[in-house]
């Protein structure tokens, strides 16, 4: 573990240099919001931000991704045979990602990289990515990372952690991948004891700013069918528009659809993010739909995150407390309130 201090100019210069080795993704101001984009001439990083509106999950798991390709041209001896699309797994770095979004990768990894099956695209994109996290000095009012096993300076899953010390950045290499990235940046000076202490103080004071209290301790012991049949689902779901904003923005939502698309005689098999909020998600060819009603779909979202996931992996909830779904739900449906209801039921 190395701790190094960089002036902010030095660090920006260093990032420029990193682009020789890595595809660098940074938060870029995009209208009223921030979005993770490739660092190039048009996209200037802006680290003075709270969090991106869209989670950076798309760096590892694109919203739309070509998986396979094929030709339908019968003149071709390989017609109709589905082949893997070539992929670029050259190194990438996501710089400025928040610790909650890094924790989200750990949460979804249990799904995409499990003992029985490894999703080749997710795993290889993930393994080629270095996560350079930026601690949150000022968490938002909707954040609750500390309640779900994280924290504004949580180091779990990060390769490098950045402390914004005002005039300078303190960079901490946490893994071999992280040290390798730091090794490519010239300048900086070793952090002295005072700087380390300041960094720890900064982290401690940030944690204290998160005031939400959302206990999850009883979720595991609840009986699934008791929660499933609880009387509160209709009421929780009442105002929901099934717009899908919550699942779309969520860094821990991973559901996808697979579709074939054809142009002329060439075709692709692609996967697209999907959402359990849409009735089509579970519609059978016969017309039967196990989640025909809105409340069933809303229940599925919360039960998945706060009960099924908890039972399946015994490793916390499927939520990193980023607060996006709370901030952007047009009708103010709040996972913190639902979690309280479930935990206390």
């Amino acid at each position, binding site marked *: 573990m190395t701790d190094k201090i960089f002036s902010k100019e030095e660090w920006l210069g260093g990032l420029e240099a990193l682009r020789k080795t890595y595809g660098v993704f940074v938060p870029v101001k995009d209208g009223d919001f921030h979005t993770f984009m490739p660092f190039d001439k048009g996209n200037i990083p802006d680290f003075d931000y709270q969090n991106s509106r869209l989670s950076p999950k798309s760096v590892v798991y694109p919203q739309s991704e070509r998986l*396979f390709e094929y030709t339908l041209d019968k003149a071709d001896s390989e017609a109709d045979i*589905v082949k893997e699309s070539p992929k670029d797994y050259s190194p990438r770095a996501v710089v400025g990602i928040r610790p909650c979004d890094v924790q989200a990768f750990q949460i979804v990894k249990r799904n995409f990289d499990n003992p029985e099956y*490894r999703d080749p695209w997710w795993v290889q994109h993930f393994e080629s990515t270095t996560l350079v996290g930026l601690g949150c000095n000022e968490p938002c009012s909707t954040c609750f990372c500390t309640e779900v096993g994280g924290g504004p300076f949580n180091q779990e899953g990060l390769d490098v952690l950045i402390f914004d010390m005002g005039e300078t950045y303190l960079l901490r290499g946490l893994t071999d991948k992280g040290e390798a990235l730091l090794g490519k940046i010239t300048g900086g000076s070793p952090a002295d004891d005072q700087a380390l202490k300041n960094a720890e103080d900064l982290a401690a004071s940030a944690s204290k700013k998160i005031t939400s209290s959302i206990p999850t301790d009883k979720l595991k012991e609840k009986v699934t069918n008791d929660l499933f049949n609880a009387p509160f689902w209709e009421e929780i779901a009442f105002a929901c528009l099934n717009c899908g904003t919550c699942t779309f923005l969520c860094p821990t939502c991973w559901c996808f659809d697979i579709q074939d698309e054809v142009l002329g005689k060439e075709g692709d098999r692609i996967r697209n993010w999907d959402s359990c909020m849409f009735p089509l998600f579970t519609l059978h060819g016969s017309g039967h739909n196990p989640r025909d009603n809105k409340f069933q779909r809303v229940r599925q979202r919360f039960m998945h995150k706060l009960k099924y996931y908890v039972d399946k992996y015994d490793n916390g909830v499927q939520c990193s407390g980023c607060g996006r779904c709370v901030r952007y739900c047009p009708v103010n449906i709040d996972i913190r309130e639902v979690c309280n209801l479930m935990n206390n039921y």
Partner: protein
Amino acid sequence: MENPYLPYPVRIDKIITETEDRNLKTFRFVFLNPEDEEKFAYTPGQFAELSIAGKGEIPIGIASSPTEKGFVTFTVNKTGLVTTYLHNMNEGDVMGIRGPLGNWYPWDEMEGKNVIIVGGGFAFTTLRSSIISMIDPANRSKFKDITVVYGARTPGMLLYKDELAEWEQRDDINMHITVDGTDDPDWKYNTGFVPTITEEKITSADNAIAIVCGPPIMIKFTQPVLEKLGFPPERIILSLEMRMKCGIGICGRCNIGDQYVCKDGPVFSLAQLKEMPSEY
């Protein structure tokens, strides 16, 4: 890196129209690369994704038995986009198969027991696989009595008619074929709904395990019949359907509670289902 989404290329070797409404066809596939057949080693009860370039993939139960070598078969009901396209394909056409997927009937538990098979409509596919496998000389001695209740709306809607007739002739399997109704004066078998015939023909749950596959309505009315006979929920086995995509428990589509029907199922005991949300 191994890719569990990549189908094995296959050629359609034979197409058989099964039913009078022509809505059910059996497709026999041969692997383009013979070594893929070994990799596709399966157990009755499993399913596969049939993959058609340009159209998509559909989960379909494997209708052939592992004792049948050189090909795999599936029986497909014409429903929507992919199944309709498949129905219009021809012998010799190339497509893909991905699998085998999911779990299987509890073969270890079934050994030494009387096996009751209750099937309705076109859900008889993996039951055919099971029967063929059980009556194979290498396997028959592992099971005690094998009794089959299989029903369809009309005689013309029964699947695998030649094989049904053949099984009727055997003395190591008790067949009870039924139809909801028929105006055929020569109809040799039963008339009546599957649950009713099950109640008539099955007399004991002693040392028996029941496998039930069929439309939801049939399952709903067969369940109490079996429970009345004394089958505990652990010995009533069902195979479920959910809309699916990945087939390997990753895309998040087919869950019932914390179980993915594609990976943890499609086969569940009634005892398991009673613990799971009734959302299927």
